[in-house]
């Protein structure tokens, strides 16, 4: 499961020896995130975001459990309960602002984590399973965040729930009954609010479970690295602790500073003012939008404005929106280039940055009013999004001529590797 030179856990005291023979939990931690896990020595700061995502998951669970102690999922009092938390619960405002902004930060670090995976092709063999589990985590996060946003029972909660569950209504034949079954009624009300609260409490623990599988799968091949060259020998690695615990600690500090600025000085910047108006089924907001982290997918949903042959526009939008994430599942088999890192792939690299620009555009368009020229732009951006993953990636992985790779991580870091000289000419440039 790990490299032969990985350090072994040696219990020092009587108590830890006793424990190690009965329940080797310290050994597990030592091998997972301690000195027993050898990690490539050349990871850059883009490799911090996995640990940061784990931090925000724990923060969301802790603040969420506290909030749940003061909340009630009853449509008549839910909105007032949130105000009760903001006004009368000791430090309730801090818990709620940390939870609301924590969700945003969870998505920020997850997006950077995913984009890191895109650029360095972290999804490639032998790490496909890590990637698949990661996409599952992302889908679970989206479901959890969506249901969490409904709980304050503001205008955007209500209308967002109505629009998103309405997507299921677009499915032919079973759509309408399915939507009613999901909501427990014809519109979001007590039944929907109660089940959303229940699931919003449950799903984070499911996420935690899949995170454990994600980390387990990671420890089979070990971490990837910016060169994409696999670990060959001990000099390619350093123990996770203290090297990466220290680096992650610094990264965490930087992110927490930004987080604190948001929580204490701009707590509502990422939210929507309409959600401070209590849900009112008789009054439709001028602009119904989900939270910012759903914008790219919302833009794709809204991009399909005309029926295409026999497929209604609404159904097409729903299919495209789900497909836009589900295609990530087959990514490892679409991109067959033997080279992982974008640093050594001149053509891929250009298209990667076009994809990033395209995603940025979709982020912007998802929050914009549904009017021209935003609709036309979102149609172009949507077309590129699908072309990138489904057409461009498979083709460039065939025709691209990658730049020469370094012999090993050691060579990439130090500029020379004694072993490399005997094996192949040192003509690499990194």
């Amino acid at each position, binding site marked *: 499961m790990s490299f032969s030179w990985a350090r072994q856990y040696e219990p020092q005291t009587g108590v830890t020896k006793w424990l190690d023979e009965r329940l080797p939990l310290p050994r597990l931690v030592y091998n997972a995130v301690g000195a027993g896990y050898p990690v490539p020595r050349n990871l850059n700061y883009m490799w911090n975001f996995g640990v940061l995502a784990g931090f925000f998951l724990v923060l969301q669970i802790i603040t969420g459990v506290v909030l749940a102690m003061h909340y009630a999922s009853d449509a008549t009092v839910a909105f007032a309960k949130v105000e009760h938390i*903001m006004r009368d619960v000791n430090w309730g405002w801090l818990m709620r602002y940390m939870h609301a902004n924590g969700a945003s930060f969870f998505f920020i670090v997850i997006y950077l984590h995913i984009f890191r995976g895109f650029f360095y092709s972290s999804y490639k063999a032998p790490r496909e399973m890590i990637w698949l589990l990661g996409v599952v985590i992302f889908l679970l996060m989206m479901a959890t965040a969506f249901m969490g946003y409904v709980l304050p029972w503001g205008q955007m909660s209500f209308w967002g729930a109505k629009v998103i569950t309405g997507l299921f209504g677009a499915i032919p034949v079973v759509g309408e009954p399915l939507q009613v079954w999901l909501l427990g009624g014809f519109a979001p009300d007590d039944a929907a609010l109660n089940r959303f609260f229940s699931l919003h409490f449950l799903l984070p623990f499911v996420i935690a479970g899949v995170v454990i599988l994600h980390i387990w799968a990671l420890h089979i091949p070990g971490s990837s690295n910016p060169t994409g060259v696999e670990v060959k020998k001990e000099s390619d690695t350093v123990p996770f602790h203290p090297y990466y615990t220290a680096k992650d600690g610094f990264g965490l500090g930087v992110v927490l500073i930004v987080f*604190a600025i948001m929580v204490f000085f701009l707590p509502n910047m990422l939210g929507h003012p309409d959600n401070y108006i209590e849900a009112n089924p008789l009054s439709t907001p001028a602009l119904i939008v989900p939270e910012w982290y759903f914008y790219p997918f919302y833009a794709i949903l809204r991009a399909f*404005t005309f029926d295409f042959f026999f497929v209604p526009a609404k159904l097409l939008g729903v299919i495209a929106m789900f497909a836009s994430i589900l295609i990530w599942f087959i990514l490892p088999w*679409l991109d067959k280039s033997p080279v992982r890192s974008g640093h050594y792939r001149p053509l891929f690299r250009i298209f990667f940055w076009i994809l990033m620009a395209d995603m940025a555009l979709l982020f912007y368009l998802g929050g914009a009013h549904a009017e021209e*020229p935003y609709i036309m732009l979102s149609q172009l951006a949507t077309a590129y999004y699908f072309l990138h993953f489904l057409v461009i990636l498979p083709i460039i992985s065939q025709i691209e001529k990658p730049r020469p790779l370094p012999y090993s991580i050691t060579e990439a870091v130090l500029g020379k590797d004694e072993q490399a000289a005997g094996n192949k000419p040192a003509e690499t440039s990194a």
Partner: protein
Amino acid sequence: MIRLISILAGLGFAIAALWSFGKGAYVVMTEGMGEQSAEYALHEKVRGPEGGFSFEGPVGNWDRQQLQRGYQVYKEVCSACHSLNYVAFRNLAELGYDEGQVKAEAASWQVPGIDPNTGEATSRPGLPTDKFPSPYPNSVAAAAANNNAIPPDLSLMTKARKDGSNYLYALLVGYGEPDPAKLAEYPEFETPTGLYFNKYFPNVNIAMAPPLTADGQVTYSDGTEATISQMSKDVAAFLTWTAEPTMVKRKQTGWPVLGFLLFATILAWLSKKQIWSSVKPRKED
């Protein structure tokens, strides 16, 4: 095989999106982008009070005198139609009133009660633990008394609007006649009966009659001159406080937290540097 299917699917999605794009583009070319409405043209960007509010910015603090004046405006003007559901009389202590004043202030309001002898619904003087009473017994009565437009609760108003404090101020001073130059371009524009023109309201026709119509409408006990602008600014400040009474405490808590995090991050940076110094540095590019 999988890549062949994927390329076909990718082309399918792209063509479907471009199909919508083409049809949309055709509509735009033949029919244009749609005309600007008069409401859109006459609407003006929100402009806050001169000098801004004392609570703005990362070190802003409440001006308690101003909050008390704003409370007076709410009590004497706004409360005729608007409720303040999430605020209790006890919260007024934060405006600088002492315990006795809070009790007296609460008692000056009539809140719904129950007659202890008969059990019938009645009203009684408020206690500090009571929330502010609603001016109408229910939403039907509120709609009936206001031409079917229910006056919204004001507790969270400044958070429920973009740039809420400035918006509220602008709205209160924004009544009047449309700009004649702009109006000339839209001769058919007319404010419907029962509505009032307000250039800062999203569709410029608001159901609320101008609440502050004359200087000196409220008599301030601290000698401040009660101009319309001053009253608007004061009540906007008061309603910013009702929307988030913990705002100043939040900002004041933020500074030591930031200081600690900065210190901890510097320590983390130094220890990271020291730990990594034992590994050979990266080659120079």
